[in-house]
Each structure stands twice: as C-alpha cells, then as structure tokens.
C-alpha cells in the first residue's frame, strides 16, 4: 500500500490506522519505521520530489514478494517540504511471525533508500539544495553519457 502526502506526515494517524486495519489479519508482528527529519548542518528541513509511476511499480514488486510469504508491506512518504523534527517517511510490515517480518523489513527499507525514485533536497535559507552526495544512482545510470 502506497500513501503520498503533500508536506509532513501525520505519523501517529498513519501508524494507528495501519494498526487498526492489520491487527485483524491474525499476524503476530507489526513492525514500523518512522523517519524524522534531523536538525543538522544548518538545514531548516528537507524537501522531496517523487516520481509516482516507478515508485508504484517498485512497491508492487515488494507487495508480491511479501504476499508469497503471507506478509503485508506498506509505506507513506512526503512530497514537498518537511520541516525539522517532522516525519517524511513511514514504512510498515505486518507478518505472521516476528523473525520473518524483521528480516524482510530490513531489506525493504534498504532497497527503498537506493531504488525508490525519490529526490531529496536540503532546505537552506529558503532554497532547495539537491542532496546529491547522499543519493544513489539507479541501475543503468549513465547510459546516455557521451
């Protein structure tokens, strides 16, 4: 399940709603990750661009993988500006058992960082500065290089 929001996430509402929905699935584990914007390097916050069509197909593949094991995967992400100390990303896995859930969750969150088509900017003095040094090139990058 993919949820995209303009601005900061209402993480409590999202996690509570997911909990209410998935607690009825007879799964023993609900694992969540909530990303909170840190105040560091003089930034006022972060800002994000999201390319939804490829994000959706990336998540669809994860949902298929999860479904084979009887798990559920979900994520919410911000588009646009998110001030320091607010949330920009919530991910969740619901699993029949704790161990399988924790394992897939770790791989899912790492894969998200390097494959999801989302671009991050630091907000500095009212400007968006692309966080290129913290970004990862996608597979096939440089194919049009001369």
């Amino acid at each position, binding site marked *: 399940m993919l949820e995209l929001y303009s601005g900061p996430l209402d993480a409590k509402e999202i996690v509570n709603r997911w909990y209410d929905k998935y607690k009825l699935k007879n799964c023993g584990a609900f694992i969540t990750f909530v990303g909170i914007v840190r105040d560091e390097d003089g930034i006022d916050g972060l800002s994000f661009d999201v390319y939804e069509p490829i994000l959706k197909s990336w998540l669809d593949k994860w949902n298929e993988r999860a479904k084979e094991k009887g798990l559920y995967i979900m994520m919410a992400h911000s588009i646009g500006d998110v001030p320091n100390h607010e949330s920009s990303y919530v991910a969740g896995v619901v699993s029949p058992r704790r161990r399988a859930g924790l394992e897939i969750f770790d791989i899912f969150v790492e894969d998200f960082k390097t494959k999801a088509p989302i671009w991050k900017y630091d907000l500095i003095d009212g400007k968006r500065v692309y966080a290129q040094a913290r*970004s990862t*090139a996608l597979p096939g990058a440089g194919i049009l*290089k001369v």
Partner: protein
Amino acid sequence: MAVVEFLGPIGRPSLNVDVKSLSELREFLKNDEELSKWLEISAVAINDVLVSDLNAPIKQGDKISLLPPVCGG
C-alpha cells in the same frame, strides 16, 4: 515524436524528440553541455520501465524519463 521528461533536480521542461532509439537520443542531447553532467549519473526509463540497452527502440508517443540519483526517506 516521443517526449523526454527530466525528473527531480534536473529541473527542465519536457522535450519533444524525433528519435528511434536511445542511441539516437544520446546523439541528439550530446551537445547540451549543461545536461551532460546529468546524463553521466542519470538512469533512463522508457514508459516507466528502467532500461540499460542503448539499442532500446523508441516508438511514437513513448515517454522517456531521465532519473538522477535517488534518496528517499
């Protein structure tokens, strides 16, 4: 014609191009100096599927997307 979208920080308006393959697109874009730094690090999708073959054909109405390095979360 196909349309090229420059996603995220590339920050350019879409471009209509008349090319039949990615290698033709590369030829078409190669003299754009400001774009070259992005071409070095960007992945390419045709109709929202990432591609890694310069011979990939481009058809009338295709959407070509340039995706620079990503960082979600």
